[in-house]
């Protein structure tokens, strides 16, 4: 693969955002790392074509979303923290669990489809069009879901109220 080096660089640059997105979409940190890895492996096979495609981000996040849906491990917001914290957890690891858990608690008021829009558009900072492509919805729907979701997060005091003006 000629552009393997390019792919490696891209993967390195985007790793953090992919993992964060996966956590925000409902994964624990270890699950999120697995998922990001699976996604990147799947994208590798197709990289030549993807890098020619004019919408690389949309493709990768589409893959992430599909991998997440395929994942048997996914349990949206199911509360089973006791099973997730190993008995001999290092303090460090417990902290990770807590961070992911705090994210999930903050986001639990949102439906999955609203959550996806917020994560992709607001946090990953895809464009409106890219978000629409990932989710297969019209851009208008991205807008309306985003504003509703942000309003909800703001109402829950998880985000500053940015529903007016600058976010769209």
């Amino acid at each position, binding site marked *: 693969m000629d552009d393997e080096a390019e792919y490696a660089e891209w993967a390195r640059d985007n790793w953090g955002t992919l993992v964060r997105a996966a956590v925000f979409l409902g994964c624990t*940190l270890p699950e999120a790392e697995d998922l990001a890895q699976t996604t990147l492996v799947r994208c*590798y096979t197709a990289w030549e074509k993807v890098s020619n495609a004019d919408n690389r981000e949309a493709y990768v996040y589409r893959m992430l979303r599909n991998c997440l849906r395929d994942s048997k491990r996914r349990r949206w917001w199911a509360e089973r923290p006791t099973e997730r914290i190993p008995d001999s957890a290092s303090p460090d690891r417990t902290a990770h669990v807590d*961070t992911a858990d705090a994210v999930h608690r903050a986001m639990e008021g949102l439906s999955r489809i609203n959550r996806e829009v917020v994560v992709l558009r607001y946090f990953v900072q895809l464009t409106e069009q890219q978000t629409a492509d990932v989710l297969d919805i019209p851009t208008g729907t991205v807008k309306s879901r985003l504003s509703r979701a942000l309003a909800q997060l703001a109402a829950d005091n998880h985000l500053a109220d940015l529903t007016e003006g600058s976010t769209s």
Partner: protein
Amino acid sequence: MSDLERLWDDLPVGRAPVDDILRAGRKKGRTPRRRPVRPLFTAGVLTAVGGAFLAGIIVAQPPGSAPEASRPGGVSDASPAAFHGELQPVESCDELLDHYVDQALEIVGPHGWESGYYRTALRDGGFLAFDTPMPLAANQDATRSTSEAAAAPSTSTSVNSDTGTNVQEQGVDEPDVVKTDGDVLVRIQDATLTTYAVTGKETEELSKIQLEGFEGGELLLSGDTVVALGNDGTRSPHRGYGWYADTGPATTRVVSVDISDPGAPQVGDTVDLDTSLVTARQHGSSIRLVTAAGLPELDFVQPTGRRGMRTAREANERVVRATTLADWIPSMSVDGGEPTQLADCQDMAIPRQDIGLDTMNVVGFEADAPADVHAIGLAGNASLAYESPDHLYLAASPFATWGECFDVCPLTGSPAMDNAGTTMVFDFEVTGTEATYVGSGEVEGSVADRWAMDEYDGVLRLALGPTQATGNFNSVVTLERRGDELVEVGRVDKLGVNEQIESVRWFDALAIMVTFRQIDPLYAIDLSDQDDPRLMGQLKIPGFSEYLHPLGERRLIGMGQGPSGDGGAWGAQAGLFDVTDLTSPRRIAVLGYAPGTQARAGADPRQFTWLPKERTLLTVISKGWSGRTGWVSVVSLDHGRLTNRMVEADYGNDVEQIRTVPLPDGRVVLVTGEDVEFFDL
């Protein structure tokens, strides 16, 4: 900076395992994927992201072959079970069993099933096992106008089906306790099937037979064949429309009876399915059942003094691991013969999303050959069914947040599910006895029952109630299938803020919706451009309509409740609406019944009949819950005025059986618990 933004930055994401990824990627690049994944992209998005690449590489199809989604109609295979996308095909029975066991392990605990799920299947009108707000009343697609002149938004008249039943969709018949072809009338009461001649001056009983081991039944009629749908009598008896499984193992019994000699009906095949009937529909001579099996009753242990919670849980997990497919997939037996698996493993699908564990089946057969079935299914809970002339939609929906969900909520309402606050809809194309999965979609909000769904010109229209995913209002949303996804193309929001949908009625280019909290707003929604539905007009009046019936292009009747008399007490109410100008619908007459009365059409639209020639409607009004009396209200329309005559018809539970069946010759048969006789108009 807000807490979420801080968390985003604070997540300790580590360094990318680039070497592992490259190694795995190289390896994967050489070996074809074991299991081809069909493209989830819709045709439109394929173009945007590079269709050739997706079809050629990810999908593991030879380069240049057409992506599935772009095939005509999106039907990807000749097999009725062609599953794809949100409904994943299964490759083997083992894979299917693994799925059931995996899912079941998540909801098994020390006491057995821990999900709060109970077996009750929602039947048709959305009769829930707990005290629920009124089910949405009929919408009935009225007569689809045949003159297709760019359908202008208007109502159109709707009359009973050919077999005498007030149905949801013209051309799609529904079961009822009585059916007629105009010459012979047949009714079922418990296990007793009676035939009557209805061509003479008086009705005449022709025969009376007992269907052995049959209970809780309703009928369909196709030519000379009666199909009785009920259960085998092993569960507590339930009569009337709201019949559902509540105790004992689920059973559905289908009995075919030949009445070509109505004086001597011949019982044909008896087919037993160990699953609950959700709904049944008839297109011509083809009948389709939708069933929901619920969770199997397994030999679970309970924690005791000596057996702790943990031990009990582990024991129950072992029970789950030891299940076989026979525990999960319903079986079918013909005339008491050896049970066989209702649907083959490859005709079952696994929902990609976690919609709750259940087994839904769609079972088609010809009326005279119930043993010869086409059965497909899905390993999940999508128990709201609506069938249009060409489509069957199964929906997995949470309950509206206003709809009280007391201590037991079905799985689909649990926030642990994928679809918290959203409704998942699966679309099947139906031809004859076959149903073919074509796509699915997800939308925020809840679908209360089948009346909240409608299909016209390939577009699914939904009346959605609020959930935790929506604002505090109702919406009308249009969904169009692109590839194998139902994509939202239009919506109208803020219909009835803080209110609950009471009834919806759909027409080609129009929806009429009634919501309620204290007053009764009636909304007219223009659907002539399905991509851009618009609120045309609204009307606010005291009371509410649970059932809407269009009389023609200009008049609509609403049966419901409203203040009656002076004392502030409420009773049944009939309102006549002028919908000539939909931007300004008006109520031109109102008929109040006595305080404490109920308009039963809201709960069972089959207790309503519109006689267009006589400009008269017949509907059942009852009073009291115990010691109940039921009347047939004969309401005549004359120059915008309503005149009413009450005819006392029956008492007690038999009130549920009252039907007014119109005959082709213009006469009406009144069916009560005791009698079947002509009704004097």
